[in-house]
């Protein structure tokens, strides 16, 4: 394993931001390769943990170096500055690095970070980005693939997660790493991780096992795995959005990943000052709870649940 410096940014008073990648050189030069990007934002603890766990796995758990067949680059964190102060975006100007691609070497700070990162990510067969959802919700682990015309749905199934969200492209997605990486010839996938700030070992194992599945099935590593799910491809029309008609204290009564029936109660809202139940949330369809609003206080008309419809 080699440690390589991807980029360095100095600060007026903080230690320099030094982003490093861990490069595991494969035994077969013609084998497919992969680069994995962890936390581009602060508050993305599971992406950070999963990527660092992968570094440890590749270093210590494969008993023979020849079991690493293709090149693997892991960059666990790009945004230490935000992680260390529990902020989501670049701490000075609050810009999101994942909206700066393909980057610009003569531009603003986060454009320069994106450019240096993007340069280091070129030439890989596959690219994996560990992300969390935007907004105030958490979810089961799933793959997000943009309908860009470059996406590879078949390969995305090799992670073995329950869902692949095949998502229509918004204007703001055109400056994301996934879209630009695909445009430059790498098969890129975003793994959307639960946005919990504590590590749940079961969930983190699920995210991690999916990556190992993918590496194994693409013959990037030799490692026997247990197969995951036969992923279901989900389009926007397959998602039922369930909002709360009242604001207040939000109590989901079902967990993410739960299969539910139509008319089943899945949550309630409590009047924040008087304690009474002001709203009960019932599922309008059979399905799977994929995402839940994660704060205890909820706005009126906020999206409380996203349910993948079945039946």
């Amino acid at each position: 394993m080699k440690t390589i410096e991807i980029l360095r940014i100095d600060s007026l008073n903080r230690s320099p931001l030094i982003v490093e990648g861990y490069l595991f050189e494969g035994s077969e030069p013609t084998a497919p390769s992969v680069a994995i990007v962890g936390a581009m934002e602060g508050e993305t603890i599971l992406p950070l943990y999963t990527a660092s766990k992968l570094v440890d796995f590749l270093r210590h758990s494969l008993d023979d170096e020849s079991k690493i067949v293709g090149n693997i680059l892991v960059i666990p964190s790009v945004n230490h500055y935000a992680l260390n102060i529990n902020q989501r975006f670049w701490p000075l100007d609050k810009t999101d690095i994942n909206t700066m691609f393909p980057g610009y070497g003569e531009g603003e700070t986060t454009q320069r970070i994106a450019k240096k990162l993007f340069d280091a990510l070129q030439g890989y067969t596959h690219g994996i980005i560990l992300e969390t959802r935007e907004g105030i919700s958490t979810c089961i682990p799933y793959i997000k693939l943009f309908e860009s015309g470059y996406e590879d749905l078949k390969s995305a199934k090799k992670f073995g997660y329950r869902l692949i969200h095949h998502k229509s492209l918004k204007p703001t997605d055109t400056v994301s790493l996934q879209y630009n990486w695909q445009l430059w010839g790498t098969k890129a996938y975003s793994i959307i991780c639960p946005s919990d700030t504590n590590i749940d070992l079961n969930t983190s194992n699920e995210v991690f096992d999916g990556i190992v599945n993918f590496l194994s099935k693409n013959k990037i590593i030799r490692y026997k795995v247990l197969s995951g799910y036969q992923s279901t491809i989900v389009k926007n029309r397959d998602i039922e959005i369930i909002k709360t008609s009242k604001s207040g204290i939000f109590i989901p009564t079902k967990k993410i990943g739960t299969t539910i029936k139509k008319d089943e109660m899945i949550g309630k809202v409590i009047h924040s000052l008087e304690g009474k139940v002001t709203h009960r949330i019932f599922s309008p369809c059979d399905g799977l709870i994929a995402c839940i609003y994660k704060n205890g206080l909820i706005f009126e008309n906020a999206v409380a649940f996203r349910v993948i419809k079945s039946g």
Partner: protein
Amino acid sequence: MQITEIFSSQLPVGEKLTIKKGRFEPKEKKPDTKRISIVSGTHGDELEGQYVIYLLSSWLNENPDAINGIVDLYPAVNSLGIDTITRGFPIYEVDLNRTFPGAKHDYLPGQLVHALAEDVKGSDIAIDIHSSNIFLKEIPQIRINKEFSPSTLPLAKKLNCDFIWIHDAVTVLEATFSHTMNEMGTKTLVVEMGVGMTLTQAYGRQLLSGILNLLKSEGIITTDEEFEQREPFSSEVGDVFYINSPSAGLFVQSITHCAIIKKGDVIGTIVDPLSGKIHHTIYAPSGGILFTLREFPVVYEGSLIARIFGESHENN
């Protein structure tokens, strides 16, 4: 003036989030009565538009008989952000001006911008007033997407601003208010002026004259009063030069904002307080007008220091 709520959402604990609109209209409306919408405060740290709308509202209150058209005022789109010094939509941390057009079943910021777009829809003209951010100070200027410039440039010239910046179409900007409204058929202009979290009163009065000038020329107001109309510089006949910091440090200005400068003039220095040394001296790469200057002194490599509008140069 009528005040209405175009969007409301009950917050979790004893408070309501509302987006308000003030409407001035003539005593008698005709089918061809023109309508203009003036929007500000999409970013919670930008307050210059609040002052301009106050001045405009005050003028219209004092001149009710001058009103021939409908003037809709939306001073505080991100009302929760303005009152909490938060640029994005609080809690969600999203830039509302990258969330358009939104949708009824979108997340809350998407619902809010959808409500705004639906309410402004049908206006003949819209003006979206921004004040840069806390980092940069801008002279009063209009930003126009080249795609829509045939219809918006003539209006921009009436707004008494100093600079009109016509930029190429950028996909990511399709999520802005101006792009959304232009697509919907409302001629929409973006004003940038001043600096975040403050009021630059002279700029506010300058833009007020421009808006009244535009209203008069469009027949939305009728008055004998004459309003100033400056001849703006236009990016059609020159280049915009960006000057970014070469290193981290403290930026110390050496020049006045909005100055006409020569190539090689010193714009400022990047210094290190601890060692007492100057890391870099920043020189103007071109002569021209300095229309953007950094106000917030802490910089990283790449932080924008200044923008100059000058003669076209192949090395830019």
